[in-house]
């Protein structure tokens, strides 16, 4: 009995600092933001008082619905592109790389070691007018106007690049766990390479697909660095709006309302998605 109590108090001792930090600096701030989103400003003072001002939400959404939808569309396209680009690489690392495996994994995380903003600035050079990449895409007719920079295309390209490792790593982790004998069995039973892939490999790697899409999609929706550096005035995303409302216009209530709607919609999308995909990949394996 005494041992059990001591064990439990050890558990709470270990848990306390982390739980305290996360509750005080993550959960409570969310509550403060919720409150702020329902406040009214005392005119001209930058002071707020609480009034259940639901119209903050209505006004913010009416003003910024374009940026809101755009964020979800850009993020969805980028996530899809990431999946298509990342899968072959993750597949090769898991099954075909042999002694090259660690080197390839290193190549996947290498972009993280260059500063995020500098990486994005590099894309500004790559996608500039008359750069080799732009010229090439122009020649083969993919970019008729000859301009990529400051368009939605550039923003999506930047997001796709910046979040690609978040897709590759979970895909690799779940592909690597597949027992190669299962794939061999499929071949022994005369399945073609493509039906082995669609009926065996892909379903078994689904947890990785779910985890990867979530890890890519969530930060992509809220991102505003790519839109800031690579996009033009017509490509602003909801993150740009929230940060400028907070940091330059000091319109805290509208910004808080937008943040809340953003978080709520992401939660709903994630929830529905997990429901459909039927996986708890995001939560990680529970301890036994």
């Amino acid at each position, binding site marked *: 009995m005494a041992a059990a109590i001591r064990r*439990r108090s050890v*558990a*709470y001792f*270990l*848990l306390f600092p*982390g*739980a305290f930090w*996360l*509750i005080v*600096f*993550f959960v409570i*701030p969310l509550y*403060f*933001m919720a409150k*702020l989103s329902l406040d009214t400003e005392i005119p001209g003072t930058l002071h707020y008082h609480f009034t259940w001002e639901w119209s903050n939400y209505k006004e913010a959404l009416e003003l910024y619905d374009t940026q809101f939808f755009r964020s979800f569309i850009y993020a969805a396209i980028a996530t899809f592109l990431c999946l298509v*680009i990342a899968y*072959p*690489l993750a*597949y*090769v690392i898991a099954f*075909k790389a042999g002694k090259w495996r660690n080197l*390839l994994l*290193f*190549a996947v995380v*290498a*972009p*993280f*070691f*260059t*500063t*995020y*903003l*500098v*990486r994005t*600035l*590099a*894309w500004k*050079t790559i996608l500039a007018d008359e750069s080799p990449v732009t010229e090439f895409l122009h020649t083969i007719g993919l970019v008729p106007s000859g301009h990529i920079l400051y368009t939605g295309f550039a923003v999506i390209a930047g997001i796709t*690049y910046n979040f*690609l490792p978040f897709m590759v790593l979970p895909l690799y982790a779940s592909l690597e766990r597949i027992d190669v004998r299962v794939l061999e069995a499929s071949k022994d039973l005369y399945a073609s390479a493509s039906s082995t892939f669609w009926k065996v490999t892909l379903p078994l790697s689904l947890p990785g697909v779910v985890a990867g899409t*979530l890890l890519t999609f969530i930060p992509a*929706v*809220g*991102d505003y*660095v790519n839109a*800031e*550096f690579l996009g033009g005035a017509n490509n602003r995303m*909801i*993150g740009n709006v*929230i*940060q400028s409302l907070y*940091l330059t216009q000091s319109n*805290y209530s509208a910004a*808080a309302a937008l943040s809340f709607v*953003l*978080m709520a919609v*992401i939660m709903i999308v994630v929830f529905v998605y997990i429901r459909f995909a039927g996986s708890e990949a*995001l939560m*990680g394996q529970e*301890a036994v």
Partner: protein
Amino acid sequence: MSATPATTTAGRGSLSAESGAARAWRWLREHTVIIVAVLVVVYLLIPIVVIFVFSFNNPAGRYNFTWVGFTLKHWSHPFSDTELTKALVTSLKLAVLATVISTIIGTMMALALVRHSFFGRRVANFLIVIPMATPEVVMGASLLSFFLILGTPSLGFETLLIAHVMFCISFVGVVVRSRLIGFDRSLEEAAKDLGADAFTTFRLVTFPLILPGIFGGAMLAFALSIDDFVISNFNAGSTVTFPLYIFGAAQRGIPVEVYVVAMILFLSTVAAMGFATWQQRRAERMTAIRPEQEEADVALPGIA
């Protein structure tokens, strides 16, 4: 797809009858996935090459986006811009502190979550994951709301540290947790059977075995902290970190030194990783207990 039957027949026929083009086509088909993977790797590395090349650029104006000419002058004085250097020092200080604090707290939390059952464990498991599922802009904005309403502490290094530790705890916790889940408990039982108390078992058995996980978590925390822009942008006040400096500079022109410093950070991370891998391989060679080695390892009998 119409070419598929043709190539298959060619493949089944005698190899010498296969034309060069057909053979090339077959080789391409068999290696498509590898070729695509190589192209993806190239895609991943292109911006790094661009940063490297442009760190030697000699731009005429203040913008370093088009190639003008080669110079070594930015590499010979990478820290000549005092503002930039100050920002870099702030970032390094912040990252080291945030890493140390979050690694300790996150590891403790992971130990509690995997090793103990207690009231509220599910909630705690949820609490550690939810910041990772929240967009950074929401985290930054909510923390700013919190600091604004409290009015204290005033925005600056302290608030940055609070914010960085907050988002690093989750990542450290999750990494260490996964290491603990894949942990062979029989090793600890063996230590206890041999008369070690709980603390000695932890110190001599558990801790060394989860150390790679803790180290990995710490590396991740450091990388996230030094690279964080969004959350810092909300909570920095007038303090400037390296990413914040770049963002500010981007409006009025990027000095080439930014590319040089980014490259120095990249190269030192690569060197540190290389060193860590080498160390780990050496440690594994020295302590690995593999079944086929057991007879040879007379010095370590009966541990496995």
